[in-house]
């Protein structure tokens, strides 16, 4: 039951304040099913605030967040995870003492059964369930090319690998949409290339739309279907990468303002 126009997720006239700072002013965006949608803008433009409103960390003061046509503005992050909104984090937010496969298995928590007593006594049904979900975790491991590292402790892994585990855990939630906060930050060009490929595969093979905040303009322009440009809490432009790149306001307000960004564009 998608909203009209194929939008899976929608922000309608969001407003958010932190004290005197207006982080978001009348921000509306639509995430189309099956698209990669990037949020860009200079520092402090409100990208992360918007992302946090989508994933439930922040609750907008005005406006509404719609998911599959339903108003979910009041729900908290765990509930949104159950609805099918998975997110990956800025920096490293994996479980360092657990192996890659265990990290991914934790993503299945809501889909699995069994409480304390099932955990303690490990009945046959629990063993069967473990087997079933290990198979599913291996599918994700296979997709993310983590086969060599499945039993490695995540705390011992490189940054890029940990980000991949983080992504795997989000995929285990069987999400309907994936929200990624600066997925490429701090990565080497090779790692960025790998991740860009994974994001496109997630869209094409899993059919999961991706919303991401990203600073690397090359990546954004290469992989996005839609780009929303924010500045001072407003959406100043939205469209395909080509449209956005040639938008006069974007060039003036954002790309023109920062020489390195201009070079990148």
């Amino acid at each position, binding site marked *: 039951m998608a909203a009209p126009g194929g939008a899976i997720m929608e922000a309608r006239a969001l407003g958010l304040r932190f004290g005197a700072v207006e982080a978001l002013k009348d921000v509306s965006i639509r995430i189309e099913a099956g698209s990669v949608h990037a949020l860009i803008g200079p520092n402090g433009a409100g990208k992360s605030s918007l992302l946090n409103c989508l*994933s439930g*960390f922040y609750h907008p003061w005005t406006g509404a967040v719609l998911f599959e046509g339903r108003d979910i503005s009041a729900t908290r*992050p*765990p509930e949104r*995870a*159950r609805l099918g909104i*998975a*997110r990956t*984090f800025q920096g490293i*937010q*994996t*479980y*360092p*003492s*657990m192996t890659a496969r*265990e990290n991914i*298995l*934790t*993503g*299945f*928590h*809501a889909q*699995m*059964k*069994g*409480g*304390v007593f*099932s*955990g*303690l*006594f*490990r009945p046959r049904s*629990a*063993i069967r*369930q*473990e*087997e079933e979900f*290990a*198979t599913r975790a*291996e599918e994700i491991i296979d997709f993310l090319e983590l086969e060599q590292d499945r039993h490695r402790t995540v705390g011992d892994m490189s940054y890029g690998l940990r980000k991949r585990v983080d992504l795997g*855990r*989000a995929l285990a*939630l069987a999400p309907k949409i994936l929200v990624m906060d600066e997925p490429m930050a701090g990565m080497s060009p090779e790692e960025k290339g790998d991740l860009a490929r994974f994001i496109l595969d997630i869209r094409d093979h899993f059919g999961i739309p991706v919303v991401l905040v990203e600073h690397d303009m090359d990546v954004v322009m290469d992989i996005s279907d839609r780009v929303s440009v924010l500045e001072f809490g407003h959406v100043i432009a939205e469209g395909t990468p080509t449209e956005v790149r040639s938008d006069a306001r974007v060039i003036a307000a954002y790309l023109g303002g920062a020489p390195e960004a201009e070079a990148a564009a």
Partner: protein
Amino acid sequence: MRPTGIWHASYATEARVLETVRSRLWLSLFGAVLLGLPLMASPWMLGELTNLFITLIAVCGLYVTVGMAGQINIAQSAFVGVGAFTAAKLSNMGAPVWAVIPAAALITGAVSVLFALPAARVKGFYLALTTLAAQVMFPIVILALPMSWLGGLVGMPVMPPVLFGLNLGTPSGLYFLGLAFAALAVWTTYNLPRSRIGRAFRTVHDNDSAAGVMGIPVTRIKIEAFFAGALYAGVAGAILAYMLQFVTVSSFTLFASVWYLGMLIVGGLHSPLGPILGVVFVTLVQEGLHTAGNAILQSGSGLGGGAVFAASSLVLGLCILAALIFEPRGLAHIWHQLMTAFRLWPFPRN
């Protein structure tokens, strides 16, 4: 590091703890020795071992709450006390041993939930203080209740455990009771990390804010971690009650709670092997000190029992300090490293 030459055809066999025939053989042999021990050992020795089993059960519970879920608990001894008083009360009401022990576990679990509720809100030092409150309140509550309920200051006698007409109140009977439940405790402790709930415990330990966002109900999981740990405490308390034949509040002190934590830290917080190694090691050190202390007392050197008691605490303190400084991952980690070195030999580790 896994043993060489072992290949798994299914995820179920991969999850096994004992992967090789040899390891299964060693464990069976060890089990046979433990089963045969009452034929040779003195009643004193059996009593010591029963005590060790009881401590092991309690520390396994602590491993679940503190080691796996990262929820500090310095009231395990009070929870053992709840189990012991429950067992005493139920045995006086004529309940048989097979009903008393599970009931003691469940009632202790229920009591722990009461004190786990704050764990949903507080972390670290504050949680430590909250559980300390549980430990302090335990004797106060028992003493404040009417004498006829739990015996108040005097305490309560415990009816001997009888199973199928067999009196288990003898040294060897208690030994087998302790052994059976210690084996159960170790088995369940090894099961937990391989389960849905066990992984959820560990996510709360590793990164509870991420866990919440990734769909794990953090508050509920924290409370369940206390509940699971207290189940073990309840079982330990029930068996201890049968062993002591009389329960009083003075048997369940903060001091014992700290010893339990110390054993877990020395053994290793992050491996189910930790409780086993920690309890065995610290008990051996304790017994060594007692023997040495008795020798000193009898030698007439003028040192009092107080000094010997202080010395044993000092040595435990030093053990914990040494563990924290030299190997925070505990004896279990040293063991795993030795196993890795053994399996890689003659090639060096790393």
